């Protein structure tokens, strides 16, 4: 079947098998591997992406269900040459160790801040309650989101562009 959707602002159209999950579509078909796959049962949240601005666990969404919708992944967080404040916050407050849960955490945080620019710790914890981190103990994740809330887009320089050449440097 043919599906079309907007992914990080780009229109994509593909012929797919109806059984393909959104997470696999994003990773295998589009090559956007920042979205991770962690549990297969909708429990861990490493696969969270935004669908029309709402966090969804892409391991339990069929790609066909995203037809006609807007998808945003971690690769779409940085824009106009700057890191999203959420990305900067996770660096500033050490909201990650292994980094595997990080994309999903950041997208949930972005969705929260879009609706509620000044959440308290309880609201942040509620927002990420469907996501597991096995490394950090969560406190730095909550602080990372608070950092982002305190440094909204446009408030200050938040970092340089996501430069594809950087990825190569890191993986060399």
């Amino acid at each position, binding site marked *: 079947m043919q599906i079309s959707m907007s992914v990080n602002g780009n229109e994509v159209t593909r012929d797919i098998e109806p059984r393909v999950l959104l997470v696999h579509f994003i990773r295998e078909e589009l090559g956007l591997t920042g979205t991770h796959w962690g549990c297969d049962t909708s429990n861990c949240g490493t696969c969270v992406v935004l669908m029309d601005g709402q966090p969804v666990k892409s391991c339990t969404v069929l790609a066909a269900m995203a037809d006609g919708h807007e998808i945003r992944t971690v690769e779409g967080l940085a824009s106009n040459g700057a890191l999203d404040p959420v990305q900067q916050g996770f660096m500033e407050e050490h909201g990650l160790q292994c980094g595997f849960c990080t994309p999903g955490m950041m997208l949930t945080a972005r969705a929260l801040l879009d609706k509620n620019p000044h959440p308290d710790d309880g609201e942040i914890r509620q927002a990420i309650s469907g996501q597991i981190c096995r490394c950090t*103990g969560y406190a730095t994740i909550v602080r990372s989101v608070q950092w982002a809330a305190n440094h909204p887009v446009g408030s200050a320089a938040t970092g340089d562009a996501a430069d594809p050449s950087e990825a190569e440097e890191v993986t060399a």
Partner: protein
Amino acid sequence: MRVQQPAATGLDLERVDGRAKVLGLAPYAYEHPAENPTYLYPVQSTIARGRITAIDTAAAETMDGVVAVLTHLNAPRLADAADKELAVLQSDEVGFRGQFVAAVVADSPEAAREAAARVRVQYHQEPHHAALRADHEDLYKPEQINAGLETDTQAGDPDAALASAAVVVDRTYTTPAEHNNPMEPHTTVAQWEGDRLLVFDSTQAVHNARKTLAPLFDVEVEQIRVVAPHVGGGFGSKGLPHAHVVLTALAAKVTGGRPVKYALTRQQMFFLAGYRTPTIQRLQLGASPDGRISVLTHDVVEQTSAIKEFAEQTAGISRMMYSADHRRTTHRLASLDVPVPSWMRAPGECPGSFGLEVAMDELAEACGIDPIELRVRNEPAIDPETGKPFASRHLLACLREGARRFGWERRNAQPGTVLVDGWRTGIGVAASTYPARRQPANTARIRFTADGFYEVQIGAVDLGTGAWTALTQIAAEALECGPEQVRLQIGDTDLPVATVAGGSSGTASWGSAIIGAAQMFRKEHGGFPSAGDTSEGDGERNPAGKNYALHSFGAQFAEVQVHADTGEIRVSRMLGVYSAGRIINPRTARSQFLGGMTMGIGMALHEQSVMDERFGMIVNHDFADYHVPSNADIRQLEAFWLEEVDEHAGPLGARGIGEIGIVGAAAAVANAAYNATGIRVRDLPLTADKFLT
């Protein structure tokens, strides 16, 4: 020994890998580009013991997109099938439920999975044993236990000393099977080019991985390249290659050179990626009325898989922790038809500390003295087991500092007396320790580049612990340059040899080699090197190990609330103070300590892999039913450390921090729960039902 003076180390340097990770660009094993890949999905045994009598692959083979269906009948032969965990698809024998019995390789993950579901396997089922019991009829004594330790030790006459002791605590404690569950599933991508194998693996040790694979495939280690620049956690389960690594490399032999990609599902990880063995621990402590311990025995029964021995060193902690003239430790294994146990964060010390440190709490109460004072009275002057002095033993300083920070003086010694808004509240303490094991077999290479950077190369691995950052700092300090002038390269067997990211040994082991290489570089090339100048340096066996007992220590404090009506239990506050030698990066170190404590809370409250012995089945084999701490479970956590440099730990002065945060954590929670309720729970985890009496 010259100890490096802190310069770049000790800095609160931002993570070197942080930027790639927040951009979603850090490639984990599955994410490396692979041209025209195939995808593997396995078939797992549905019996716990027996033989395969027939496999019908016809339906699978004819499906669109299927490249190959492998079974023990047609799979390529391994050159060495002695390790029965790794000898995948080499015989008709089934040794545990969930074992690989076939695998489909296909053009898409969906096709592989569907075809695997159509493979029909018939078995001749044999009787199995899958439940650990203290009275298991065939318990045996392994030749040695892990880390090369003696299986049993004895000093003095423990039984006579127990008979004459004024105060005796004689209790049995149990810890369940637990699964590491790193967030990144175990993943292997394998590709053969002629007789050369390229593996992208989610591993804690690239060089060890290829050393394990080479004899299986009858190739030299140099013919295998293992790459792992980023790993999404491991906690021990990625320390040793498991069966999926072999299966993927084996399958890649039949794809005509196409890569094979395989990420275990979370469910498969519960059978195929290692786990912490359950333990049954009998502790006997005999003491004088004022709490001076004369006798300490720690007798352990634990399980191994019948197909491969794994002997956790659970009672090792009782050999060095407290002073006692009469001591005994034993380990007995039940060989069961179960998945193969492996390393999980602080193997040995972690489960062993639950038994020992809860028993200490019971002894403190029996003697009517404060639990911290009990530990003060039994602090050994030298290592009781070896007779060597401790290179650095600051347990009491950790306990005192923790007591001050935590507010220990507010503890009500009478259990079950504090009720706040329906919650029984109490606090508890436990000690922590972990050995410092610097590994010698490490080499680092430093090369000065044309554009003025120091390229520092070593085949180390960063599981998320912060090795990218800490090793950059160590190199900068040793080269006396800024961290921004260092370009670190790790996670690849094309780099100089390195030991495992495990046993809290990585930073000290790799760091020693980097310091050696830096010193050699300056000696050979001076302070103004030319492009291309290169030097190597090796790690060394720590000479201090001959004369000193090398261990880290810590104190764990917990505040627990147990609901008086429902038994619901919460860890409202936890605080740890650690002595681990020099801290290289406070930011990554604190996160490691807190992460260990968090996993300790999981061990205390949630984690338990439930075996249905009728089927040899781990029934709660997913994240819906195997509970790890979620953010609501983790409230106030604090970690502190003593400022110190251990001159006996090597040129870095650091001992390692990855595991000590979990050791003793569950005991501190259990002791706090007792203080809150007066109910002594000796069987982990501390679920609500255990407080409803």
